[in-house]
């Protein structure tokens, strides 16, 4: 059983939320949802239900710091697709499909979305491109029948949905699946000795062009202070006319 786990480098949400911090100056970290995916892969291997975990990321050489952090967590191997462009979800899904074709994993584990662009599309698109079943937003996963299927608990707006999917499959992880382990300093130092396999879209025989362009990035508007209302009627009127939510 081989698991491919994908991860993206994103600006540290903690730092960009700090006073004076901005996404442009913040250090990078592994996307928190992807970190949960890596952790789950490690736990599956620790239970003896997987034999190899291959990590995959797309980005320039600068993201190798996050690749090493992922290796330090416990990946067996790591691949970086060298590309510094701002790629849209479809372009990313196509690159992932090409790597899946080469690596032939039974399961692709990934975060449900990246916290920088919040697209939440790559897992679904990859499943569509491969024609594989998908379990998205999972908060629990159990392997069944000699690692040929999985029972997944999905967190949906309506409640918890439990589904079974046969492998090969795409699984995307939600926040409550697990709490990722921290990278230790000895782990980080050992990770430096493991090579990172670097490939390009050309190596994969792919021509990928971004189909969307980021025109500008702005901070959300500042929230103004609340107002105190005197009566229920006034509240209802404001919700109707000003907030337009009812």
């Amino acid at each position: 059983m081989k698991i491919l786990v994908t991860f993206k480098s994103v600006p540290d949400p903690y730092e960009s939320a700090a006073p004076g911090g901005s996404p442009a100056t913040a250090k990078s970290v592994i996307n928190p949802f992807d970190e949960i995916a890596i952790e789950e892969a490690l736990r599956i291997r620790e239970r003896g239900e997987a034999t190899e975990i291959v990590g995959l990321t797309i980005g320039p050489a600068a993201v190798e710091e996050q690749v090493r952090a992922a290796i330090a967590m416990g990946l067996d191997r790591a691949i970086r697709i060298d590309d510094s462009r701002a790629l849209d979800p479809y372009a990313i899904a196509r690159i992932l499909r090409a790597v899946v074709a080469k690596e032939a994993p039974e399961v692709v584990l990934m975060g449900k979305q990246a916290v920088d662009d919040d697209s939440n599309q790559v897992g679904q698109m990859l499943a569509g491109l491969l024609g594989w079943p998908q379990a998205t937003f999972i908060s629990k996963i159990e392997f069944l029948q000699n690692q040929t299927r999985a029972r997944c608990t999905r967190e949906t707006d309506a409640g918890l949905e439990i589904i079974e999917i046969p492998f090969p499959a795409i699984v995307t992880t939600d926040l409550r699946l697990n709490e990722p382990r921290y990278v230790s300093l000895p782990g980080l130092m050992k990770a430096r000795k493991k090579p990172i396999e670097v490939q390009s879209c050309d190596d994969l025989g792919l021509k990928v062009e971004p189909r969307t362009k980021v025109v500008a990035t702005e901070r959300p508007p500042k929230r103004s202070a609340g107002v105190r209302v005197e009566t229920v009627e006034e509240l209802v009127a404001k919700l109707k006319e000003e907030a337009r939510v009812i």
Partner: protein
Amino acid sequence: MDFSWSEQQRELLDAVSRFGREQLNYDVIENDRNAVFNHEAWKKCGEFGIQGLLVPPEYGGLGQDPLTTVAALERLGYACKDNGLLFSINAHMWTAVIPLVFNGTETQKRKYLPGLCNGSLIGGNAMSEPNSGSDAFALATTATRQGDKYLLNGSKIFCTNGPIADLLVVFANVDKSRGQDGITAFVVEKGTPGFDPSHKIEKMGVRTSPMAEVFFENCEVPAENLLGKEGGGAFLFTRSMTWERGCILASAVGSMQRLLEKCIRYANERKQGGHSIGKYQLVATKLVDMKLRVESARHMLYHYGWLAGHRKAVYLEAAMTKLYLADAWVKCAEDAIQIHGGYGYMTEYEVERELRDAIGAKLYSGTSEIQRNIIASLIGL
């Protein structure tokens, strides 16, 4: 002298920041109130690699140089708000780990260092006595050789980590007629007959770091637990004390930086008389001075770290670093309370604890007066 970090150093330091922020900041107020040591956090720090930063890899450490080590401890002090935990870690590193690294026999190193690095063992030392503090070498505890063991008799006070320690480096005199040349260091393990470290001492700050009064009554220590040479204790103590002075307040620099940022945030948010209080010059001046203090403290720390890593004599620099950082930390914490006004005095705001934690820095590892004496003697007075 180069304080720009290599890629490896930066990665290590970032990992420390994140680890401290995410793994160590729980129950800090309650543990301070109840004087409870966070054992779990200690173990995590060991597994993460803090206690072994300086220890050679063959004994389970990371083999980092002193500059990287103090910078890592600074990051830990910034990220982790439990100053007592960090104080315990410091006592462990400078008074138990360092003497073993430099003076331990091969057998002693193999026996103790891996556990001291990975968080499974806790160390400390027992030096101060009720009647010998600043006059440390006047200690009254005796060690009498009897065949293949020594009998220790006496008592020690202010023993950091005493109640939780698996081993202590204990200083005793083998021959009082030799004065300071009779002082000898021993590794005393928990559970040794005649060794009683159970008398906890209540204190003002770093309350999450346990401290004990320790008694030795015909305490039988095997001769193989002699650390260094018989009569070599004073030299060993001075060496570990120099490391301690230079490094023990590394985490305080991080704590100061955290306080500075907290105060700037508060000075911008808090409005009085139609302005944020940071716009008032009396508040702004405090913050500017705090910034200067943090920056100069950091430079002294890194300068010490660099010198220690390049095998330069650092006795003077260690004393200056200790003296300046202790004063700067106390002043930072005091100003932080003043800037927060009445709120700063309240436990919930986590500023008053910093002042209580900081004040001990003027007392341990040699009082500020002793540091001044050392500096005075080294500049020719």
